[in-house]
């Protein structure tokens, strides 16, 4: 895979991630409107992975908002993963190592944040 093709593929990954995020967030915002939840209402629902499924099943705005926000935050990681795979296919060890280090740093952030 040459550079131009890889970059275009990664561009598509980023675009898809942005669109999926946008749709989920838009659904959550619509839910806020329907249930009369204002953006400055307190307290805001905490992020809880265990509640995400049940909130989505119950069509609660918080479920769509948190899933959309997760999609936003994880899209760059998917882009890095796609880059890693692309460079691996091209046999570029140095760029594979670069992508692996970036992914490790992101995973470490999640671990330190969750542990904190």
């Amino acid at each position: 895979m040459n550079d131009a093709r890889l970059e275009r593929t990664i561009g598509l990954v980023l675009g898809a991630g942005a669109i999926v995020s946008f749709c989920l967030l838009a659904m959550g915002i619509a839910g806020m409107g329907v249930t009369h939840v204002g953006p400055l209402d307190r307290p805001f629902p905490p992020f809880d992975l265990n509640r995400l499924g049940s909130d989505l099943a119950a069509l609660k705005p918080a479920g769509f908002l948190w899933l959309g926000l997760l999609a936003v935050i994880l899209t760059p990681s998917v882009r890095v993963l796609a880059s890693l795979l692309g460079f691996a296919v091209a046999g570029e060890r140095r760029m594979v190592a670069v992508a692996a280090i970036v992914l490790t740093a992101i995973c470490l952030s999640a671990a330190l944040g969750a542990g904190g």
Partner: protein
Amino acid sequence: MFELLLLMSGGVAAGAFGALLGLGGGVLIVPLLTLGFGLPFREAVGASLVCVIVTSSAAASVYLQRDVANLRLGMTLEMFTAIAALAGGLIAFLLPDRVLAIMFAALLLYVALTMARARDARETLGVSAGRGAGSGAWAPDDGPAVFEDGDRETATAEAAIDGGLAASLSGPGYRIHNLGRGVLGSLLAGIVSALFGVGGGIVKVPVMNLIMGVPMRVATATSNLMIGVTASAGGLIYLFRGGIDPYVAAPTAVGVFVGASLASRLADRVDLPVLRLLFIAVLVVTAAQMALRGIG
């Protein structure tokens, strides 16, 4: 409902400006949320980080498909921005707001002065001599740095012959200089991003442009690409530590998405000198805001 529309409108404006300048919009979102909506600083930073990721994904998607961004350079530098953002995210929960605000204002003024003192945009961008690339290479008057596949392969082959990491990260029509200083700038950008909820483009763009010799438009596009990973590393810490309010972050981010998508499609038509002046103006305004917050 009015608050929702207001938040989304602010997001549209911040997203458009951020995408054009590689700033991610954070410099506008944090003041909007803290001064305009009375949010705590940390929640504003958390929401802003979400917004700058949206900006990055939307704009970088277009830039990559148009071959404007330098993927290799971006990924190499974002190793350091991501690690630094991790550290910055942890520090953000320890330091007082006032100290951070004054430090940030000083940094912004320094960068603005550096950009303003550069007399000639072409000289600054390192494109006035020694180009030697074929059609499609960087030419400020001709639009964006769009690479033809032939140019790209030739540049990569030349870099391989020359050897060296910096050479292999160069693009058609320009060569990377001062990679070490670029790494230091990236570390600073990562910390700044996680501390202040910006993408770090305010550091990355001038470092790549003024110090590393990357053409402005390529630097802006590459910065946009890097911003997502940088803000993601910091954003995960805010997410797990309760620093992101979904009711605020979501409407603002949707507005930013719309603004960034529009702006990245208009970027080709923006004049380079105008882009630079806008960049300097944003830096000065943001510095004043941060200094006022710090002085209290």
